[in-house]
Structure formats: C-alpha cells, structure tokens
C-alpha cells in the first residue's frame, strides 16, 4: 500500500485503467502536457501517449459531445471539466444525450463514459470555480453521480465509474484534493456505485454528507462527542442512485437527521435526502430532518466566503438543536 492524497489516487486509477484497457481515453483542457490545472492527470500523457491522453480545444460541449460519440463505439472516454462552473456549456450534451442515448436506442448503444469535475468551494477562487452542481445531475435521468471523500474511495469509485456500462458524473472535492492522505492499495479494486458508507456509528443523530463536507462534519463530531452526543455519520458517496437502505436503517435507529451540503439550499441535494427520509423513516422521526446548506446566493468571492462555507461550529449548532428538539 502507498500513502496517497485524492489527486494521487485519482491519477492512479486513471493510470491503471489506461494500462488495462486500450479503450480508455483521457482528455480535456490542459490535461495533456500540463497534467491538468490540479495535476490530476500529471504524467499520464508521457506514459500512455498523446493519442490517449490529450488536450482538447477550449469547448466543454465539444468535449462531452465528442466523448459521447466515442463511447457509443465502445470506447471509454474519461473527460475532465476544468472546474465545476465550466460544465454548464456542456449541459445540453449531458442532459439531452449522455443520460439518454441508451434509452433512446433501446440499448443498441450505451454510453460508458465518465465526466470528471473538480467541484466545491473553500479554495479561495474566482467566481465559477466553487460550484456544487450535483443536484442538476442527480435530477437528470440516465446518469449516475458519485463523489468520493477519501483517497481510497476516490480510486475505487473512479475505477468502478470507468468500468460502469453507463455514464457516470464523477465529482472531485477539490478543497480536500491534497488535504487527506491515506493508504491506498496499488492494485485494482472498486467501490460499488450506489452504496453509502457509515463512517462512524452513533446513537443520537444521523448526519448525511459527502465530499469535502465529511471532514467538516468529522470536526464537529469531535466537539459533539465531548458533549456526549454520538453522531452516526453517513458518507453518501453516490448522489444517484441513493442508498436508501443505509439511510433508512440509520434514521430508524437515531430518529434524527441532519444533511450537510455546500450546494444552494432551494431545490438542492439536501431536499432530496430529506424527502427520502420522510419516505423511509417517517414514523421514527423525533425531530424534523434538517438541512445545513449553502445559501440561495452566488458563492461569494474569497473575502466573503467565510460567511458561506459550512463550518464545524455551524454543524455542531445544528446537531445540538436537533438532539435537543
């Protein structure tokens, strides 16, 4: 095993699949010589050649649309959107085609492609560099959407995504790209898409989060534990399809649930999880399932971001409110 951060784990998964499967291609803006603005694809072009790992012209609809074309011939393109905010020019291809080609052609064609998107706030960036667009994709039929929160999961989920016969949106919590290090097996393994993970069991309240928010929740949990509150933390890992079983079992046990997501509140990811909890565990509820989310505002530029980002303190405050409800 090797100690890796998320960037390295993703790079490792790409490298492994590039080695193993000639059908895998990696492209996007600056992913070739440069190795990506976050260095996620560093070294891959040298290892696998410019025919398989390459820069594309600066056009996201073009990147996604061409990848779909490749995928239906049986290739497995893994394309990068440089930042969350730059996937929007590709929305028509994603919403109208990527999630639908299989259904439209009754399975004659399938779309085994992966769209990698560094996402989320907290990195002191320009506007459009801190978005959390997962709800747009979760609401779009035909896609699967995953978000790892650890290097281990990052590798396992990416390999699973590339091997999945259907399209997967793979969101990378860029805020913790290099913050979390972990032993990760060098050989191949997968994390099943659609399975959440209980990171720590607890009796008093269920907290559901994913991506960079996991770390913030864990910090809040340390403080909560001092106050005698046992939190059960679920790392959702897959945004769609949702692992309802894990959520149900947990909330039936705790009777209380807090959802923590960075995305804007209204019509956001937390709303779906609250609805699932209503559907799965209504009679167990001892307090309203609650959400702690971004505001319905643009995420502010760095000097204002402190107001927007979700801190352990705020999470703790919500946990306490719920436990004392």
């Amino acid at each position, binding site marked *: 095993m090797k100690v890796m951060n998320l960037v390295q784990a993703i790079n490792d998964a790409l490298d492994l699949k590039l080695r193993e499967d000639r059908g895998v291609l990696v492209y996007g803006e600056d992913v070739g010589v440069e190795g990506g603005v976050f260095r996620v694809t560093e070294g891959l072009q040298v290892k696998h050649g410019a025919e398989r790992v390459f820069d594309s012209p600066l056009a996201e609809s073009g990147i996604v*649309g061409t990848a*779909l*074309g*490749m*995928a*239906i*011939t049986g290739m497995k393109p893994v394309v990068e959107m440089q930042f969350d905010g730059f996937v929007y020019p590709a929305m028509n291809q994603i919403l109208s085609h990527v999630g639908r080609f*299989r259904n439209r052609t009754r399975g004659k064609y399938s779309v085994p492609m992966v769209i990698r998107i560094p996402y989320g706030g907290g990195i002191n960036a320009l506007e459009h560099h801190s978005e959390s667009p997962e709800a747009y994709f979760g609401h779009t039929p035909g896609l*699967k959407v995953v978000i790892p929160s650890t290097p281990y999961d990052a590798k396992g989920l990416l390999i699973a995504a590339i091997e999945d016969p259907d399209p997967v949106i793979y969101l990378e919590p860029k805020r913790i790209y290099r913050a979390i290090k972990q032993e990760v097996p060098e050989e191949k393994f997968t994390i099943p898409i*659609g399975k959440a993970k209980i990171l720590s069991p607890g009796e008093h309240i269920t907290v559901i989060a994913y991506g960079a928010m996991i770390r913030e929740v864990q910090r809040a949990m340390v403080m909560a534990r001092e106050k005698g509150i046992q939190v059960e933390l679920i790392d959702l890992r897959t945004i769609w399809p949702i692992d309802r079983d894990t959520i149900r079992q947990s909330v039936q046990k705790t009777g209380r649930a807090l959802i923590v997501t960075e995305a804007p509140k209204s019509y956001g990811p937390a709303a779906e999880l609250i609805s699932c909890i209503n559907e799965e565990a209504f009679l167990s509820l001892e307090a309203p399932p609650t959400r702690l989310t971004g505001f319905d505002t643009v995420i502010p530029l760095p000097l204002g971001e402190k107001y927007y980002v979700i801190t352990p303190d705020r999470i703790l405050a919500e946990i306490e409110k719920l436990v004392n409800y």
Partner: protein
Amino acid sequence: MFDHKTLNKYKAIENKMYQVLDNEGKVILKDWKPDLSNAEIVQAYKDLLFERTVDLMAVSYQRQGRMFTYPPNLGQEAIHIAAGKVIRMEDWLVPAFRELGAWLAKGVSLWEIFLYFKGNEEGSKFINAPRMLPIAVPIASQLLHATGIAYAMKYNKENSAVFGFVGDGGTSEGDFHEALNFAAVWNAPVVFVIQNNQFAISVPLKMQTKSINLAVKGLAYDVPSVLVDGNDFFAMHDVLSYARKQALESGTPFLIEARTYRQGAHTTSDDPTRYRSKEEEEEWALKDPVQRLKGYLVRQGLWNPGQEDELIAGFKKAIDAEFEKAENFREYELDSVFDYMYHDLPDELKKQKNEYQNYLKLAKGGVK
C-alpha cells in the same frame, strides 16, 4: 469525377456551385461522365421515386391520425439517395432528421420510421442498420457525436468515414462550430453535410447567417469544403464520393453545403404559406431533383415514363405493408419506460416501477 483539381475550381469563397445537370437533366459540365453504371443510375432514380412515395404516404398516414408527426423530405431526395449510395456498411451515418433515403440505404426499415413517428422508441433502434445513429432532435448536437466517432474510428485504425448531417439552421448553433473545429484539430474523418433547404421552420437563410454561402464556413476551421447543387443527384454523388475518399485517405474532415429546397412543410404541423411565397416555391419546383434525373434518363433512353405509375403503385403496396408492421407492433409495455435507462436497472428505478405496478394492480382496469 470530382477530384482535387475540381475542388480547387469550386472555391466556396468565390461562391461557385458544383453542378452537373441543368434543370432539364442535360449534362452541362464539360467532359463529365457518370461514375455509376446505367443500371445504378436507373436504380437511383427508382430510389428517388420511392423516397418521394414514402413521404406522400407518410403525410397521409399522419393526416389520418395514425402518426403524431412527420418531417417530409420532398425536394431533398437527391442528397439522400446519393449519400445512400456512397455511405458504406463500415461507415457511420449520423443523421439530423430529414435524410430518409440515406437511412433506408443504411439498413433502416420503413416500419421502424413509422413506428418512431407513431411514438415508440423501438422505432429508433434501427436494428438492421449498424453504425447508424437515431434521429437527433436537439439541432446540431449530433455533429459532435460524429466527430467523436470519427476519432474512435481512426484510433482503432478502422477504414471508416463518418457522415454527419445538419440543416442550414443548424449551422447557427455553437455545437456546429465546435464539431467542425474538433474534427479539424483532431484530423477526424467526418464528412459534414449541410442540407441547406433555405429555411429553419419559418426562418429564411438570410436571417440565419450573412455569410455568402454555408460552405465558406469551412475556412474558419481549415476544413475543405464545397458548395454543391443538392438537387442534382450526380453532383451530390460526385462530391460525396470524393469527400469520403479524402476523409479516409488523408484522415481529415470535409464540409459539403448541399443547396436545396424544402418543397413541403417543416413537419406535418407546419404551414409554409405563412412565411413564403408561391413564386419562390414555383421557382424551386423547376429545379426538382427527381425531374432532373428523370430528364437525364429519358434523354439517354434509359427510362420510359410509362413504367412509372405501375412502379409507384408497387411502392405504395410495399409501404402500406411496412406501415401495417408498425401498426401491429407489440403493445408498449411499462418495462419499456424503465428497462433501457441503464444497463442494470438501479434499485431506485425498480422501486419506482414496482410502486407503479402495485398501483396498477389496485386500479383494476389498467392504464387508460
């Protein structure tokens, strides 16, 4: 024969149009010889007639309420039949939605098309037409798929070209731009065919672009291009053959503007008298592609117009039989809503399907 030298003569920027036949079907190009046998040309003419007959029948099925919509090909058939002759099994056909004759040549069954316009996705599977994509509704989006496929073909060293179709209106979309640019930068063997039928629904070409023609847009990407008379079967066949050859030999894209006219309505819901003049329609009727090839054949003594009625009567029977197949297609089942969304149906969708099935069980009488 259209070759590199011809290409240089028909510079899009000089607004020259490649044309072989005049309106009466006389060959106006010096030293030109068809690169098809007489039998093939006669067959092409029959194919033109067949496509036209399908259109006629389809519009009438739709009028009878047996299909929910239909986009007629009337006036654009020469492009489709020529493309059908040029595109090989190993090539990919990436349609917009108005290329009927080409689809049929690629192996699409008529009943599938009818089924599709009756409202069943099974009609866009095109089971006997490998390497043929379904109809693309979001305008111009399909051209990026064509470019991606072409990259894959080249990567896999397949000797295969990709034909991507789009309308004049489609050239305004950003995806048109990106598809041509990617294809050029990647040296991807795509033949882009713009069917310039002068209208995007009601919007005339002059409100779509100010460029002197659409072929000239190739210059923006260094994609070789040519403006062709799209109502001239021979001109289309020559250029498409050349485009395919050069795509495969040099592994690069090519752009064709096929200048034509949509003689019919946009779809059966459209009424062209709202936005264009009888005079314009009559002017273009003189250039009708079917009449032009017929003129050629008659002139060459290859065709006896007396045969035509019988031929068309036979077509109609065959088309009716295909339509019947579509009408007798198996019932649309609930499974068809869910089961093709993913390779393996996720639990969430199983649950949604189950809930619905349970509802159906309770609501005896079933879905209305």
